[in-house]
């Protein structure tokens, strides 16, 4: 019980701060709590299917299958699939992290995981459509194309900058769920 509460210490601290703000500045405090609540409501609606799919993928998709498409020897196809996977998504970036974790657990290449993250963050098609309607197709398409190049290039740089041991340590985090 205490250990469980200890895991939430950061969150508890923030709530204490929220209440303190509310005490000295009630209108701001109410807004903070309202925002926090709606964030949780959003998370509660977005994450259940994501985690359920992750669980199902974990038991049904063999490591070899995923490695064939996204593993060390997946080459250009692996990069393309990672971009498409991220771009097909919508929803906040935090929903991409657990998906990236299962990719690593199933032996996806590190650079592909980073491409996937980058793609999810900025290439999401549903969002780009909305962007085009607000800021114009020229703006949205230019940004999309420039970002595809950037996402891929950045993944290569990060892949080079992180050593084998560091990668192994990151993958080890996700071996057990």
């Amino acid at each position, binding site marked *: 019980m205490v250990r469980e509460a200890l*895991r939430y210490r*950061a*969150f508890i601290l923030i709530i204490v701060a*929220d209440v303190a703000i509310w005490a000295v500045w009630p209108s701001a405090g109410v807004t903070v709590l309202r925002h926090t609540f709606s964030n949780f409501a959003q998370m509660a609606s977005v994450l*259940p299917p994501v985690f359920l799919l*992750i669980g199902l993928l974990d038991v049904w998709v063999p490591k070899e299958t995923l490695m064939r498409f996204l593993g060390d020897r997946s080459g250009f196809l692996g990069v393309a699939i990672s971009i498409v996977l991220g771009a097909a998504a919508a929803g906040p970036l935090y929903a991409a992290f657990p998906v990236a974790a299962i990719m690593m657990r199933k032996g996806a290449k590190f650079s592909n995981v980073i491409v996937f993250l980058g793609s999810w963050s900025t290439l999401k098609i549903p969002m780009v459509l909305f962007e085009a309607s607000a800021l114009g197709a020229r703006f949205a398409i230019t940004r999309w194309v420039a970002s595809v190049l950037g996402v891929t290039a950045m993944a290569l740089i990060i892949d080079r900058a992180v050593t084998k041991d560091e990668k192994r340590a990151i993958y080890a985090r996700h071996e057990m769920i």
Partner: protein
Amino acid sequence: MFTLLAYALAIGCLVVSLARDRDRTRTAFRKAVAAFTGILPDFAAVLGIVGLVLTFLSPKTVAGLIGAGTGFVGMVITSLIGAVTLIPGFVAFPLAKSLLDRGAGMAQIAVFVSTLMMVGFVTAPLEIRYFGKKVTILRNGLAYLYSFIVAFIIGLVVR
């Protein structure tokens, strides 16, 4: 819309999985719950921080700050705002559009949109839990710098 699709997909897969193997489905479900509860404390903390940031850096405040600077200084200001805030797209794009209409520069808006999406300052603690400090700093740092290149290209192509 995305949420609806995700639910349809998840429920569809769940039904197929149940039909094929109940025990495996139970394992999958247990794993899903374990993965979620394992990371929940960090999620809770990040969502709490986002609640705070959204209040003190509301879209209205952001609009005021973005209007303030022009040129490269303006880009630095808007990029920092984009990196720190977490405004959902359906609020951010109309906001960006109205700022453009009110005379904000194309490059400033482009760097704002790009950093808003690619750089996650407040979600960094969560990212660190998944990828470690080094990768998180590298990814966000490079994305921040690259946003200026994106803005430069957009400045050339879009008038």
